[in-house]
């Protein structure tokens, strides 16, 4: 869990992101600052077009801020070369997207092992880690299945295993429950929660309040700005005091 004085794993400072220029400029983010500590899961909510997904892609180094700086484990992403940035993305950041992006020609284990192999781990080492990661998500028996032979929920869990494999400490999820039914979607959220409880920092973009509620803190974006925040857990514990 978060300790006092813990360094944030993700630190975004006054991030602006503008697409286009002049009259046609679109201001996707207009000065967003966000810290996510180890052990903390932060949900980002807001209407479509509010900048949620832009925030996530900048946090993960998939997009670059027009101004401001994003730090992952203290490393400023904006100043990195393409090659160094790619390494931070592989080693420190795990992504779970709505479209799972599992590669259909690879088995579950091969899909999960891929980022480790890209990162220079031996094939055998990567496979061992992949099997462990799958087992953690109750998919140990399906390691050698192809995505097409798995249910939507199983595919989603495999995608999460891939996002979490290795020593990544920042997990970024964009509508990770996609079109899953409510029970399976909940299982995905429990998992994300468990990974954060185990020390990762998580950012979850969702339009579903029921999913955002698994987070320690929910921030609300509107027109590229954070307009509100539920605050930390300590403030929210009061409502059902006395109930179990």
């Amino acid at each position, binding site marked *: 869990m978060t300790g006092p004085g813990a360094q944030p794993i993700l630190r975004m400072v006054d991030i602006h992101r503008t697409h286009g220029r002049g009259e046609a400029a679109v201001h996707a983010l207009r000065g967003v600052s966000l810290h996510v500590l180890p052990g903390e899961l932060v949900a980002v909510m807001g209407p479509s077009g509010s900048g949620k997904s832009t925030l996530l892609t900048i946090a993960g180094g998939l997009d670059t801020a027009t101004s401001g700086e994003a730090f992952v484990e203290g490393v400023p992403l904006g100043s990195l070369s393409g090659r160094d940035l790619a390494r931070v993305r592989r080693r420190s950041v795990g992504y779970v997207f709505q479209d799972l992006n599992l590669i259909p020609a690879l088995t579950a284990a091969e899909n999960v092992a891929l980022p480790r192999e890209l990162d220079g781990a031996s094939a055998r080492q990567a496979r061992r880690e992949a099997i462990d990661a799958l087992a953690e998500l109750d998919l140990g028996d399906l390691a050698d299945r192809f995505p097409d032979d798995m249910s939507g929920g199983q595919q989603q869990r495999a995608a999460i295993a891939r996002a979490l494999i290795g020593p990544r400490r920042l997990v970024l999820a964009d509508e990770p429950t996609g079109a899953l039914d409510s029970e399976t979607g909940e299982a995905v959220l429990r998992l994300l929660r468990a990974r954060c409880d185990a020390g990762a920092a998580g950012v979850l973009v969702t339009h579903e309040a029921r999913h955002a*509620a*698994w987070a320690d803190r929910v921030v609300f974006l509107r027109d590229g700005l954070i307009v*509100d*925040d*539920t605050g930390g857990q300590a*403030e929210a514990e009061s409502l059902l005091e006395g109930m*179990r």
Partner: protein
Amino acid sequence: MSVRHGLLALLAEQPRYGYQLRAEFESRTGATWPLNVGQVYTTLARLERDGLVTPQGGDGEGHAYYAITDVGRAEVARWFAEPVARSAPPPRDELAIKLALAITAPGVDVLRITQAQRTHTLRALQDYTRLKARATDRDVAWLLVLDSLIFQAEAEIRWLDHCESRLARAGAAVHEAVSSQPERHAIAQQARGAGS
């Protein structure tokens, strides 16, 4: 909330005394709706008056047991079989009333109201979700009650989202509606005048 039918359903299982009924009611519904024991005895007295339960006397330890009657059993069966009625008119919903008034009142920032409510309700939703994360699969009844609270809170937030997008789309139309209010007031006053 029907304490009456809740207690009757518990008595349909076996005879029980007041404190037992209260404890059983609370544990079976996750202690979400606490009962005081006075309420239990008042309800038992009414059930007895209506012939739905009958006192069975004490057990020697000062506990006054009640048992269900055949009429009571039939009433429990009817309660389980029938849908819970939706009241008409619907119960007063302070939030709906507040928003309805806010969009027509001059100088009120509706977005601020919806956002403040959204944050407040999300905190509650986080709270319920934490309780749910701690519950085990064996707590089925408690989980059902929690899920009910969760879905209700979620519905309120979805409705707030919907209100905002509706207002954004109809921004101009709202202004028009506000400016035509005097006419509607006049009509309402006429109607009231005719009624009195």
